[in-house]
């Protein structure tokens, strides 16, 4: 907890530094606006004093100065608003880039620790929520103290007594804030946890809503949701109760200053006061709201600061950026596949759950096929993830063409492999985009070749817009077989020497499975293939067999097996 706080603080500080130049423009504009505020108050006090003392000569010019100051101030604050907005955009752009790099840096292993929705929420909502931090909080935080004491000094110069009263009331603010500010920070940390939990829970419940409804759990789930929504309200109110108390203290300081100044100044005005005395008294009263305006802007942005701390913590949960040094050559001889060697590979997802792959070794020559067998949970998928480079062995090593995977960058690994899983993730977009995803710079001929090799063209004519049909979430629904053909087309387009197949037909009926297997066998030609599948049909693949049982290799048999 303590360490977390230090990290959050360091992060917040670093953010402040990174956007200093943009913040300072906003701050300078704010200071100018305060100076205009002083002029405005003085001109107004001057006008009123001249009216009250019936000194009509100076009324006109004073009103003129007042109006001019008013207009200038409005223009300034409009510019200030726009500058602040662009500071917010600039900062969010920079941060989102950083978070993207971190997510990509850690890759699929991240999904073992965090819900994909939670990562997406960090990437989108947390960063969007930081807009106020950069656009409002940072400028207000650097501005308020200077601006407030500028007003106090300006008043003291003209009117000692009122200046001292205002100074005393302003000096109370940091004390109030220290007390309530800490309490708010602690409480809001809890609130953000509750918020995040509600979001994750809701997405999960929406994904499974059919399961819930059809098992008659709607009422129970709705009640659970109501409870967590209420929990959120209570937590938020806990934070707000203190936060509002903190802003009430501002009201206390301001009202005290106002009442004291009115009462004391009214005494000095007994009898027939001079023009100057009256101006000073009115100036004092008019400057009270001005002195507290900058602090109010800061309090209004207080929530924005809390967002920053929460964002810092969420980002801390992502792994820091690590530069993996690329040692191997990038030029590859793809024809004929590559050899794959596993040397005493062991792996554990975490200590507590124990080792899931024990000391597995095999040598697979270039162009050969390896079929992974074993009951569900025997470690086949984990072994594939190791071969994909999503995770690294705890012990032992895996070699591609004699080169340790550890010495290869993720990009170099991915250039060597194609992967087809149980259910391909199709992205929101057209079929063309979904296939080109494997190689965005592919030529039209290459794309056509991949489309026909994977037999995607067989069903294209039945789709409304052919290759341009929008699919994926919210788009046109494809059957499992059709989706799998897109994955095969991706693999053709990619043309990598090693093909990893993770139960590619497990969700298909026998007829579709047979058709898909024909395409897969075609794809496998001239490549090294590692396949794991339960299906009897899929075992028609000729090749080596590796049988896993509880993470151990219990048999490794040769080709004709």
């Amino acid at each position: 907890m303590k360490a977390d706080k230090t990290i959050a603080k360091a992060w917040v500080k670093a953010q402040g530094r990174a956007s200093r130049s943009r913040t300072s423009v906003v701050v300078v504009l704010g200071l100018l606006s305060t100076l205009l505020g002083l002029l405005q108050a003085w001109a107004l006090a001057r006008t009123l004093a001249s009216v009250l003392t019936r000194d009509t000569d100076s009324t006109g010019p004073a009103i003129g100065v007042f109006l001019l100051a008013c207009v200038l101030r409005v223009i300034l604050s409009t510019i200030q608003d726009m500058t602040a907005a662009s500071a917010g955009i600039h900062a969010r752009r920079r941060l989102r880039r950083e978070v993207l790099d971190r997510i990509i840096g850690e890759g699929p292993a991240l999904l073992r620790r965090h819900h994909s929705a939670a990562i997406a929420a960090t990437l989108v909502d947390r960063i969007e929520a930081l807009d106020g931090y950069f656009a409002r909080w940072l400028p207000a935080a650097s501005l308020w103290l200077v601006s407030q004491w500028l007003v106090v000094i300006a008043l003291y110069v003209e009117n000692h007594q009122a200046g001292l009263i205002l100074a005393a009331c302003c000096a109370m603010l940091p004390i109030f804030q220290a007390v309530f500010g800490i309490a708010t920070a602690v409480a809001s940390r809890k609130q953000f946890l509750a918020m995040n939990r509600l979001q994750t829970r809701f997405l999960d419940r929406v994904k499974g809503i059919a399961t819930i409804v059809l098992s008659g759990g709607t009422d129970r789930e709705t009640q659970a949701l109501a409870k967590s929504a209420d929990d959120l309200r209570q937590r938020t109110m806990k934070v707000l109760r203190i936060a509002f108390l903190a802003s009430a203290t501002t009201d206390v300081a301001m009202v005290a200053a106002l009442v004291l100044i009115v009462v004391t100044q009214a005494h000095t005005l007994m009898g027939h006061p001079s023009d100057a005395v009256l101006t000073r008294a009115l100036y004092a009263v008019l400057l009270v709201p001005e002195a507290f305006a900058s602090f109010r802007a800061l309090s209004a942005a207080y929530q924005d600061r809390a967002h920053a701390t929460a964002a810092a913590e969420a980002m801390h949960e992502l792994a820091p950026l690590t530069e993996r040094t690329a040692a191997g050559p990038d030029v590859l001889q793809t024809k004929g596949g590559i050899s794959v060697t596993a040397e005493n590979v062991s792996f554990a997802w975490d200590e507590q759950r124990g080792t899931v792959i024990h000391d597995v070794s095999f040598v697979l020559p270039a162009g050969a096929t390896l079929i992974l067998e074993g009951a569900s949970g025997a470690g086949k998928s984990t072994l594939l993830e190791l071969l994909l480079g999503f995770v690294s062995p705890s012990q032992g090593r895996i070699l591609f063409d004699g080169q340790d995977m550890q010495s290869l960058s993720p990009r170099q690994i991915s250039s060597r492999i194609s992967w087809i899983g149980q259910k391909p993730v199709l992205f929101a977009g057209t079929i063309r985009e979904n296939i080109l995803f494997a190689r965005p710079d592919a030529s039209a001929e290459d794309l056509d070749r991949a489309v026909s090799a994977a037999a995607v063209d067989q069903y294209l004519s039945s789709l409304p817009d052919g290759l341009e049909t929008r699919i994926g979430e919210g788009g046109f629904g494809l059957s499992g077989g059709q989706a799998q053909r897109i994955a095969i087309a991706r693999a053709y387009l990619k043309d990598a020497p090693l093909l990893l197949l993770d139960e590619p037909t497990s969700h298909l009926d026998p007829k579709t499975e047979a058709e898909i297997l024909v395409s897969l066998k075609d794809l496998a030609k001239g490549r090294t293939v590692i396949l794991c599948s339960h299906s009897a049909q899929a075992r028609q693949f000729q090749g080596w067999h590796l049988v896993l049982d509880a993470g151990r290799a219990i048999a490794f048999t040769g080709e004709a097996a």
Partner: protein
Amino acid sequence: MSAPLPTNPVAETGSETALSRILQVWRPQYTRLITGMVIAELAVCAGLALMGQAGGRIAGAAVGAGPAYLLLRLSGVSQIVLRYFERLYTHDAMFRALADLRVWFYRKLAGGAAAGLGFQRSGDLLTRLVSDVQTLDNLYLRILVPLVSALLTLPIATLVWMRAGTEAGLLTGALFAVLAFILPLMGARLSRRFGPDILRAESELRIAALDLTSGLREARAFGAEDVLAAAVTDRQETLFKAQRRQQTRMALMQGFAGLIAKAGIAVILCAVAGLLFPQAPAIAGITALFVAITVLEGVTGLARAGLLSGQVSHAAQRIVEIADRAPPAPEGNAPLPAGRDLRLENVTFRWTPDRDPIFRDLNLTLRQGERAALIGPSGAGKSSLAALILKAASPEQGRILLGGTDITTLRDSDLRSQIAWLSQASHLFDDTVRGNLLLGRTDIPDTALWAALDQARIADVVRNLPDGLDTWIGEGGSKLSGGQGRRIALARVLLSDAPILVLDEPATGLDAETERAFLETLNNATEGRSVLLIAHRLTGVEKLDRIWRLEDGQVISSAC
């Protein structure tokens, strides 16, 4: 799974109707919401009195009126107290209303779930609930409360200003009205143009982010991280562009509002000075001036609220639109019949009118306690049959009877308590093993859980998990293997005491040996219940009374 879900066309709901629907949902909170507005107005009046008194007292002292500070002190204290309670009370009322809205939305969603939901993007739905509902807090706190309070303040402030001169007072009152009502209205118009763009861009950004995070495996395997990251940054730029447009307009609008506020102050000031207007009495004039400064600056922010209203009404529209998706079949209230025979009579069904029917004139009877298999290739409509039986979809023609009663006349919950369903899409929740088995029920002892796990042949695996039943299984059961997850889902179904089990491809993802063992246990575990086994093939170990083969929308053979 392959069953295409209908895109339910919903008539474009007008934004006014959407807002009034939302206000209806809030009805139970009306007392609180209105009380909040009243406190808000009282706080405004206290602030107004405070500044008015401050100006008036100084002016009074200057012209030799006697000192009287009671009202000043009183208004000071009440302003502090009222402002605190106003904030606290309005926020609390708002959060209560928002919680009601969330629950209402989820309930509505559940009503039309199986029919419409499958086609909705889950990322988009998340936006709708979390972000749109959040946006709606603006409706009360930043639009309704200030607007109502401005409406109540207008006559009070105008009366004060008229003491500085009738014309000047009325003119300032008019400027106040422009600030509080006309500018926000213009703002609302403006934002009706931009608000939807921002929400849409945000939603698109969220989809791109979810594409990246849920497709991290694909991204790494294909070295396509940059493509997905570029999609995120592209959509971010679209969002920023939309935001910048709105922010610029907002700043300009705010500037314009500032000028109008200053004009109002200038009018009173002229009256005080005797320029253009007849000169006001000093104390009344200066009191009016101080009130003008406070009140006009207070409502300057309402222009911003107008801009917000576009976003708010769009959010309301989307929430209502989703919520109004009609449930697939009407709900009845007939009592449950005694018999458990399930019978389909001349059922014709298609998901959308533009597609071929999945069933044509289908007739089937599953007698109580009978075990039947429905075999057919994927896409033949096997899962659609489950949807029909569970009233997640309704037939175009024909009817479905449970114990001789048409299921459309039954209560949904009654029907579903009689039929337990294991589908390919059965969802594993990001929860513990126990939570996944119970789905919120509390009336089942652990021994029953273990018995179900045993029957589903997963008990040993669960026993070896670090926390047993309390082990967290991750998103979609990601911490288990595919086969283990399926068996947890099966255990959940076996746990229900429904007399009819619909098992849609229960053995998907199991290896041949486990599948065989699993089907054998199924034979014992389902003793005495009706079973409808939906599969694309049989292994030979199933004990069955009937086998139906489905092809081209018809049962073409029935054996055993």
